């Protein structure tokens, strides 16, 4: 197991669209294990493969208090939704930033488990929010896309500035 490097906005790789997983081999199992370890270490309650630079449709989620209820969603798809809820979300690709987002209160989704076995289930509350947040990642969508223009510009600038600073530091270290 290994902790993977989480991409931070504005990394353009966060806008990639994930390919479906077709071959459920051992490598997929390793990726899922590494993603879970990375999520728990961060700490986070959900992580999408796009965030660690892996272009397959893989999500890990654990919204339990005891951190012992790992859910694996491969090739997930929302098939029904209902209601509204507003939850303050954060994202491991936007460290230190939190904002309220409106999403469906209840969803029904289809996905495959790590062996490729298809399943269909419902989610509500925080679990539903987290599934929607992570599924967005697989199509290159970020939670800041839902914010008002003003808020979005502010957070975009803040992270672009931080990225420039990191790049300068890196250049010095090499030079």
């Amino acid at each position, binding site marked *: 197991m290994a902790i993977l490097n989480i991409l931070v906005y504005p990394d353009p790789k966060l806008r990639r669209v994930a390919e479906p997983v077709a071959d459920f081999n051992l490598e997929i199992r390793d990726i899922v294990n590494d993603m879970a370890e990375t999520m728990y270490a*961060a*700490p*986070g*309650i*959900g*992580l999408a493969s796009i965030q660690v630079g892996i272009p397959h449709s893989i999500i890990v989620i654990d919204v339990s*208090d*005891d*951190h012992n209820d790992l859910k694996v969603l491969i090739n997930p798809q929302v098939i029904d939704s209902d209601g509204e809820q507003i939850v*303050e*979300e*954060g*994202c*491991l690709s936007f*460290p*230190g930033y*939190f904002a309220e987002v409106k999403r469906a209160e209840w969803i029904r989704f289809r996905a495959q488990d790590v062996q490729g076995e298809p399943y269909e289930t419902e989610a509500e509350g925080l679990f539903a*929010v*987290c599934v929607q*947040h*992570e599924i967005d990642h697989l199509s290159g969508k970020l*939670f800041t896309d839902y914010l008002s223009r003003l808020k979005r510009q502010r957070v975009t600038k803040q992270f672009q500035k931080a990225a420039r600073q990191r790049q300068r*530091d890196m250049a*010095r*270290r090499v030079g």
Partner: protein
Amino acid sequence: MSQAQNPRTIAARAIFYVVFRGRQLNRVLNHALDQAKSEDRGIVTELTYGVVRWFWLLEHQLNQLLARPLRRKDQDVLCLLCVGLYQLKFMRIPQYACVSETVDATVELGKPWARGLVNAVLRQFLSCEDQFKSNGLTDDCRFSHPRWIVDLIKQEWPESWEEILRANNCRPKMTLRLNMNKTSVSEYLDILKESQILASVDQTSPVALQLAKRISVENLPGFSNGVVSIQSSASQLAALSMELAPGQRVLDACSAPGGKLVHMLEIEPKLDEIFAIDIDQARTTEIVDNLSRVQNDVQVITADAARPDEWWDGKPFDRILVDAPCSALGVVSKHPDIKHHRKPADIDRVVEQQRYLLEGLLPLLNRNGKLLYTTCSILARENDGQIEAVLRNHPNISIDPLPPSLGHQTRFGRQRLQDDTGGDGFYYARLKNQ
């Protein structure tokens, strides 16, 4: 996805990494602050620094409150209990809020079973708080230091050890150094006033100001173009004691992160050549970083300064600054994790390094050249002890006296002790080559 965490959970986890995993406080905190809402950053910082400072006292009192000690794998719960107790003892937060927020923090810590325990321990403390006044405590608990450091400081400073230990636990103030080429004390005070930042004149250094509250450097007028820097007043006295003059060739031997180097360039922009050396590659990049705020052509070199054959061009130096690696027991209030991480053997190791540096660098001194030796230590072995050895081995080297403003006179140099305004403990000795 992530969720903003309870600041108490974030602090407890950070404290766990510092106290039980030997990680550096400022690095751990940087990462931890990413999990907090921006309005919670202040309290996370306060709780983390506070508990790391007062850990020995808090742990001792918790052990009295706990029916049996926590298991090793629940050291994070112990850290959370410390966070709870610290708030009750040291912070002005309503008691019910402290208890309930700390109880809730068990969930995000992944230890929901500890809710009842945290609740019971904190409430029991409140019900018999009077029993926990500091009477009857051993010195290591009362002053919250490991026993060996208490013993060492008692032995070195039989008269002032209590003040030293007390000063080690204070919250240090933020000190600025003004660039006298770009501003003056009175002008910059006015600028701060306009920005509504409270500041006062510093008693130690003539070019320093003390801020009433810590602020982020981005909010400090003129920081990015070198009008002002962050540096303790004791450190400022080092460059101010170099007797710099135009045309001199200067060596800054243990330069990283370059604060004193930049200060020297500000004091005397017309130096002939200046070498900045540090042994650690990652840290020499910090020097370059710091230099980017000032005009200069400094030669920054990653090398072992005490082995001149690796980097020296053979031309002697008029001034050498040796700000030696040391036990750092003079700057504990700023870096309270020193109390957790320093081990007795570390002192032998730095004493050895200091001797090696001085022996390696003295031959590089020009006739009439001067070497300033400084440490942020208060131990005689690292300070006068080193100078005594130098004088014994080098008949051509003599002491060049320093002014009383640097601290009280020791046999060979000047010593400042840390104080409760956050002034650093610091040692200076200036040597001259006849």
